[in-house]
């Protein structure tokens, strides 16, 4: 078994096949250089520019992952720690407690914890979050916008063509370097 078994072929066919093979080789060579010039070795990943997000819920529906790889994050230094958090409570809550009927989040993914008076801490329970941005809109509309959506890279499969990116109405998705994969909001944008 020193060499693969080759087909006994007529020399005409052999010649023809060889020619076509040569042509394919030529094409592959052309494709290789061309593509290498249009490619980059540095990995990039998808991320949302939180200042462009319009909270349309497509992050929840379009992602190939179910639930979405996009989740809400809480940037604590931006949070007002409000008693009446518009990202946590329904627009017209019956009372300001953790009752399910008062909670804005459809999946109950926000945890509220009383700190010292009058402050409350709000934390995202990420496995429950589906990225619908309902709380983001509530927070950004009235509050400081410390809730916002980010692509979570422990979950994102980094499709070359991101399904959310094509559907995103304000084009808030962009590619960022893989070693700096988040576009976090910053308190600097405040005041």
């Amino acid at each position, binding site marked *: 078994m020193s060499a693969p078994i080759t087909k006994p072929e007529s020399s005409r066919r052999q010649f023809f096949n060889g020619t076509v093979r040569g042509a394919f080789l030529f094409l592959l060579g052309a*494709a290789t250089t061309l593509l290498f010039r249009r490619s980059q070795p540095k990995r990039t990943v998808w991320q949302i520019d939180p200042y462009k997000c319009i909270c349309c819920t497509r992050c929840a529906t379009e992602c190939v992952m179910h639930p979405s790889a996009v989740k809400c994050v809480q940037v604590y*230094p931006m949070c007002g720690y409000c008693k009446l958090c518009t990202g946590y409570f329904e627009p017209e809550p019956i009372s300001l407690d953790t009752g399910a009927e008062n909670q804005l989040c459809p999946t109950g993914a926000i945890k509220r914890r009383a700190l*010292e008076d009058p402050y409350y801490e709000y934390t995202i329970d990420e496995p429950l979050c589906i990225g619908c941005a309902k709380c983001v809109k509530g927070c950004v509309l009235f509050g400081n916008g410390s809730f916002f959506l980010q692509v*979570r*890279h422990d*979950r994102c499969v980094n*499709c070359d063509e991101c399904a959310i990116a094509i559907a995103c109405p304000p084009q808030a998705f962009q*590619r960022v370097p893989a070693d700096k994969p988040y576009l976090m909001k910053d308190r*600097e944008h405040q005041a």
Partner: protein
Amino acid sequence: MRRLVRGCLWLALLGLPLASAFGVERFPPPEFDAGYKMPVTTVPAARAQWLSYLDVAVLVAALALTSHLVLRKRSRDGVLAVSVFSLLYFGFYQQGCVCSIGSVQDITLALFNSGYVVPLTTVAFFLLPLVFTLFFGRTFCAAVCPMGAIQDLTLLKPVKVPAWLEHVLGVLPFVYLGAGILFAATGSAFIICEYDPFIALYRRTGSFGMLALGAAFLIAGIFIGRPYCRFLCPYGALLSLVSRYSKWGVTLSPTDCIHCQICDTACPYGAIADPTLKDPHPDPRKRKRRLIALAALVPLLVVLGGWLGGRLGVPFSRMHATVSLAEQVAAEDAGKVKELTDASKAFRQTGQPAEELYAEALRVRGRFVGGSVWFGAFVGLVFGVTLISVSEPRKQDIYDPHPGDCVSCGRCYVYCPKEIVRLKRIQSKNVIPLTPVRGEQKS
């Protein structure tokens, strides 16, 4: 250029904390008396760069190993083992992405739109299987492609697809390839990825539609050998084209086929080409006339296809977001629709003039119409060539795998009686000394 801009952006972002010292103000968070410590928002890292290089390395290794197993070892068991590995690595671990099938679209987009920077890994996943196929046949399909592997492993009760149906369905991959290229080249959608049947399975999550599609293909695949590979896979279409002219490839007994037809029955993929012993056209004049007619039909089909494709260009172009947005905005401005869409709202907020959007949409539509003409013509050509190849099958006098259709799974090796004898002999050569024991060394 884009990279430059991006670089500047990052510089600017990095510079922000610096800038804060010179005038950008920060509003202090509440003061907590009881020693509350603010949690830090977690930032799970993206997949490391070196892992994508590992993927390429594993791809090369798997391709080389499979080629070796198929062509040298002629070992079905080996191929099976690699299949299982590929299913686990490229399928479940890598979650089916990057894959060579989808890479066709990245490559297309990169070729047609120089603004698209394609990852190097994707280029490798596109080119390497093609190179291997050019030399060794479709060994990629045999055991490296996770889509092929899962279908190969779940094929339990193969049913033969009638030859005519096989021919008709065999056109589909090329049509799909053409459509995939059209939509990728115009930057509107990666349809091959969108309708990938098994990726939802590898991710173990997905929309209902995707999961249902996957289930349908898996169930069909129990009876019909590799339904996706044979009747849809666009990359398979490319590979089968290249494989026809491969240097080496799967072949059974080269000289002494005994026409037992066992391989033909054994091959679940209908890839064993029958010998053309009996001339299908006994009357050479008739045959010649038929060939001429068919040859004349091809350009006709191409023109017809091109014409039909051109007509489809405008409706196709609505798949492109810019075109659909432009139509929406135009309809809103004309007062035809009352309800604004999120996209049109977002567009209006940017303050970009509608004329720019219309111009861009018209440009995209123009590309679509041009592309659709090519697409239609290509489909016409595929139909024509298929007709010719059906009426004029490749000449051979033995049962042997068709180099284009054969996915190098190695099943036929196990069944071919001549092959069994050959293997036995090699085995015995290794075990029993070749000196005749009872004087019957000749067989």
